[in-house]
């Protein structure tokens, strides 16, 4: 227990050097914000997701078939391990809007009107699945955390967010994001065209589905765009009538019995569905939306420990240096305490308080700041993940762990910094400490240095050389700050570059038109080339297929491109151009990695267009920054499917200023499923990145402040350590600027060394981050543009400059008489 008077002394000393301690507290707080916010967000998302999956009875396995009579589903139920199966018909319908340039589509899913919904507000309340037609009240809150709600009895994968059920044949429940984006409310009417018929539906409410948490159409889009695509549920009867597929299902979802896994049911299901045009069969783990969300969660989780660890290391390093100095400065006081009879333990305990208090203050501040930070961060994710959001709960476990970590870091740094107290005897303490500099340093071994440097420059270099540990800690602290900045700067630049490359080197077309179904290539081309305003058209093939390798099955769009294409080319992340292969597939690296594939391997392609699974060789694996893709030469692809040349999409270059006119013509086209404007994709990307950019700038600001805090503290410590010699120099007649040169030169040398160390550190950090945050939709380029280093170096240099300015000002304010009066 620390004696009260010692405690008072410590607190007063801390208050006396409050700026330095505040700087430490700030750096610690940032580390703890990273830890608490990231873990809380991760937990909240996982918690929301788990609840959502459980409440909506997210299926364990999925299959897509050309068509299967619902009456045959009961047979699948009998397969060992299958606890239940639900089959739904799904079709993509075009929403008729005033918008003349954009095709708006909804993925219409037919459901049994009697199916029991999991609904907002009821999921939390002990599994009260809401029967269709008796849904939750409009406006029911979707913010209730859903604890152990068992939704046994409700249909798979359906969540009624708001509104009523499907009581009438023309009722429709639409994705929540779509309604919000388009300002559509329950009671409104919406017209949808399908199979050439326009049909009016009455909007009854909003829905969400665990199958569509990240809602993307199958047209090669890069980002969700709720203005143009979402899901909608209608009565199965309505959809069957429109499509003429009475009693049929295309999308199957399976619940498995407890104790059974996907691998147990895979083969029997494949056999059972073979005759129904099985296009894909995959587990929940490989379900596209789930896969993406899981990757995102993994990336957040993987960033928490290293990010907070880095900041805590920096803070601990500063604290250690500060406390070493304090012990040196207060050696006479320490000797006096010991002479009075204070034990080593009592004195050390008191001095450790410097670290513990700083750690606690930093931890507490960080924990408190993490509450709004995690809220903001969570909102950012909620915007793109279609799940009934819960309020981020204050997770006291993480807050206390964060505070504990901060106290531990502060305590450990303090213990290392003050351990010399134990060795100090009262008699030694009363004498000035032995001079530290007794030998030459590295700087003396470089013979030309004294010739090119002033004495002040040599003083600075020797000080660095003779305080190796301290200098190394300072150097690494600045280097970490520099690297965090470089990584953050590089994000902006690289993402812009990535998008620029994608739309200027790879997908060069102005418009991509996805056809409703395969069409003869030449016929499609002549139709599109004949459109006024079209400069050039190219037919391509995009087919959803399943790629099977060993025990993994993944759905992917297999893209058939044309050799020598001027509109759609295969380019890797290094800018290298590849010809579409005629004898195999080119896979993107993220997809190949997720399947454990390398060049030369053979995979099986599963598609309703193929009578049976067909092998194909992987001719190359290339690194790209965008969605998982799989390429082949278009003609070879048609051959592979034993079809004459065909197209499923046409890419177009338009005459300048003709884009709108072309789009207007296209959306009137009968066989056109969607029209993707490259410009709009870019706009969507910018909107998406807009949210991230605020986060990036926040991190950047913190990194700059941390750099300043580190350098300012180092400068303060250096000043206090050397004020006697600096004052002597002033008395000798040196100006404030000349005297400050010793410190400023030292800082610039450390800064330069930190930048040199920071560059490889940045590259390693970028590599780690790239691996952590790349997912199926996009990969982060792992390089770092030189401009990021320049910006970061400039930011650090500004911090050094400002700290030097502050140091110079302090030197100017030295009371020479007071400083020189004190004995060392």
């Amino acid at each position: 227990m620390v004696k009260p008077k010692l405690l008072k002394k410590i607190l007063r000393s801390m208050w006396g050097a409050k700026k330095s301690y505040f700087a430490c507290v700030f750096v610690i707080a940032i580390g703890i914000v990273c830890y608490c916010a990231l873990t809380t967000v991760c937990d909240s998302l996982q918690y929301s997701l788990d609840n959502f999956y459980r409440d909506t009875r997210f299926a364990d396995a999925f299959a897509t078939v050309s068509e299967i009579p619902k009456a045959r589903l009961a047979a699948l139920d009998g397969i060992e391990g299958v606890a239940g199966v639900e089959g739904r018909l799904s079709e993509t319908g075009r929403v008729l809007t005033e918008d003349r340039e954009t095709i708006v589509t909804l993925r219409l899913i037919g459901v049994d009107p009697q199916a029991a919904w999991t609904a907002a507000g009821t999921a939390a309340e002990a599994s009260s699945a809401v029967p269709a037609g008796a849904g939750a009240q409009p406006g029911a809150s979707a913010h209730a955390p859903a604890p152990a709600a068992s939704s046994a009895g409700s249909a798979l994968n359906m969540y009624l967010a708001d509104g009523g059920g499907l009581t009438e044949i023309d009722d429709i429940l639409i994705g929540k994001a779509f309604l919000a984006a388009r300002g559509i409310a329950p009671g409104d009417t919406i017209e949808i065209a399908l199979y050439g018929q326009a049909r009016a539906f009455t909007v009854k409410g909003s829905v969400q589905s665990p199958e569509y948490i990240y809602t993307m159409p199958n047209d090669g889009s890069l980002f969700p765009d709720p203005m143009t695509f979402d899901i909608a549920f209608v009565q199965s009867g309505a959809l069957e009538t429109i499509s003429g597929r009475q009693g049929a299902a295309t999308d199957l979802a399976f619940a498995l019995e407890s104790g059974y896994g996907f691998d147990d049911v895979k083969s029997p299901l494949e056999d059972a569905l073979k005759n129904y045009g099985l296009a894909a069969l995959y587990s929940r783990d490989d379900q596209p939306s789930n896969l993406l969300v899981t990757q995102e969660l993994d990336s957040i989780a993987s960033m928490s420990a290293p990010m907070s660890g880095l900041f805590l290391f920096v803070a601990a390093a500063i604290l250690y240096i500060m406390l070493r100095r304090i012990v040196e400065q207060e050696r006479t006081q320490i000797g006096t305490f010991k002479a009075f009879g204070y034990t080593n333990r009592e004195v050390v305990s008191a001095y450790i308080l410097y670290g513990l208090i700083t750690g606690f203050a930093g931890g507490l501040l960080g924990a408190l700041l993490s509450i709004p930070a995690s809220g903001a961060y969570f909102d950012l994710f909620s915007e793109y993940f279609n799940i009934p959001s819960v309020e981020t709960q204050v997770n006291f476990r993480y807050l206390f762990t964060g505070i504990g970590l901060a106290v531990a870091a502060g305590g450990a740094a303090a213990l290392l910094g003050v351990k010399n107290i134990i060795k100090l005897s009262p008699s030694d303490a009363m004498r000035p400490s032995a001079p530290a500099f007794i030998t030459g340093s590295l700087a003396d071994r470089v013979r030309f240095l004294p010739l090119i440097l002033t004495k002040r420059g040599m003083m600075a270099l020797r000080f660095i050389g003779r305080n190796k540990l301290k200098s190394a800690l300072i150097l690494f602290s600045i280097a970490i700050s520099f690297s965090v900045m470089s990584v953050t700067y590089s994000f902006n630049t690289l993402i812009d570059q990535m998008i620029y490359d994608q739309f200027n080197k790879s997908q060069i077309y102005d418009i991509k038109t996805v056809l409703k179904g395969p069409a003869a290539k030449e016929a499609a081309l002549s139709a599109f080339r004949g459109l006024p305003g079209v400069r050039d058209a190219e037919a391509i093939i995009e087919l959803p297929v399943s790629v099977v390798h060993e025990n993994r099955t993944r759905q992917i769009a297999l893209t058939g491109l044309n050799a020598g294409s001027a509109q759609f080319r295969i380019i890797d992340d290094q800018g290298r151009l590849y010809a579409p292969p005629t004898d195999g597939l080119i896979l993107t690296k993220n997809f190949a990695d997720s399947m454990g594939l390398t060049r030369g391997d053979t995979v099986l392609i599963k598609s309703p267009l193929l009578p049976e699974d067909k092998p194909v060789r992987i001719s190359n694996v290339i690194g790209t920054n965008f969605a998982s893709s799989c390429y082949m030469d278009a003609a070879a692809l048609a051959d592979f499917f034993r079809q004459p040349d065909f197209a499923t999409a046409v890419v177009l270059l338009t005459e300048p200023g003709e884009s709108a006119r072309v789009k207007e013509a296209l959306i009137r086209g009968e066989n056109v499923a969607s029209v993707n404007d490259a410009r709009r994709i870019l706009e969507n990307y910018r909107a998406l990145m807009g949210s991230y950019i605020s986060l990036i700038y926040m991190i950047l600001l913190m990194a700059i402040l941390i750099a300043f805090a580190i350098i300012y503290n180092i400068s303060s410590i250096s000043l206090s350590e050397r004020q006697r010699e600096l004052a002597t120099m002033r008395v000798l007649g040196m100006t404030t600027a000349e005297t400050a040169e010793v410190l400023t030169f030292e800082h610039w040398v450390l800064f330069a060394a930190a930048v040199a160390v920071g560059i490889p550190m940045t590259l390693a950090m970028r590599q780690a981050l790239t691996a952590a945050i790349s997912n199926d939709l996009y990969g982060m380029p792992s390089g770092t543009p030189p401009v990021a280093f320049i910006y970061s170096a400039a930011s650090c240099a500004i911090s050094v400059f400002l700290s030097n300015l502050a140091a110079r000002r302090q030197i100017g304010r030295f009371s020479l008489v007071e400083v020189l009066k004190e004995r060392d």
Partner: protein
Amino acid sequence: MAAILSVRNVTKKYIMGEVTVEALRGVSFEVDEGEFVVILGPSGSGKSTILNIVGGIDFPTAGEIYYKDTPIHTADEKRLTLYRRNSIGFVFQFYNLIPNLTAKENIELASELSQNPIPASELLEKIELSDRAGHYPAKMSGGQQQRVAIARAIAKNPDILLCDEPTGALDFSTGISVLKILRDFNTDYRKTVVIITHNAGIAAMADKTLYVRDGLIDRITTNETPAAPEDIEW
């Protein structure tokens, strides 16, 4: 001989919380060019305050100080720095050598500031430490350090050397050797030397001695036949 320093009715008050301490209560004296002056007085008498004010590292509360004809009492920090740089050499009781510069570099640190410096090697020879030129302060005795400190102060070739208890931390024989160097500087380079000390024995080698007591000049004595440093005792 012309006065190089004129101190006229200088007072200095320190306000310490609610207490005002009058360190100097109206001090007047003159120091002539080339004089060897000793300011003698007990601890707390105000002699260090006089040295600090005269040396341009502290400000008087009232009164006037002139270096030759230049007023020092009205000088701003910039002019005081130039004054210290060009005209004053300081020697401290605890040497204040820069620990990470060698003996020679410590001297050169000062000579870099001067237009007309005395070469470091010449000074090292004079203080008989040529063989220690590359040694760091930590490897030298107190006497050697003080000799280097004096050489450093002299290196700028200042008009006035102000020494604050230069022998205070040294044994007798080392102290005498230090005083000898100061006397040599005074005679060889015809420079003014002002020493403050509480050691009355040193007064014997002064041309002029100022006796300070309670912030006032108690008396001033002149000495027509100053003793050689080797002949003084304490």
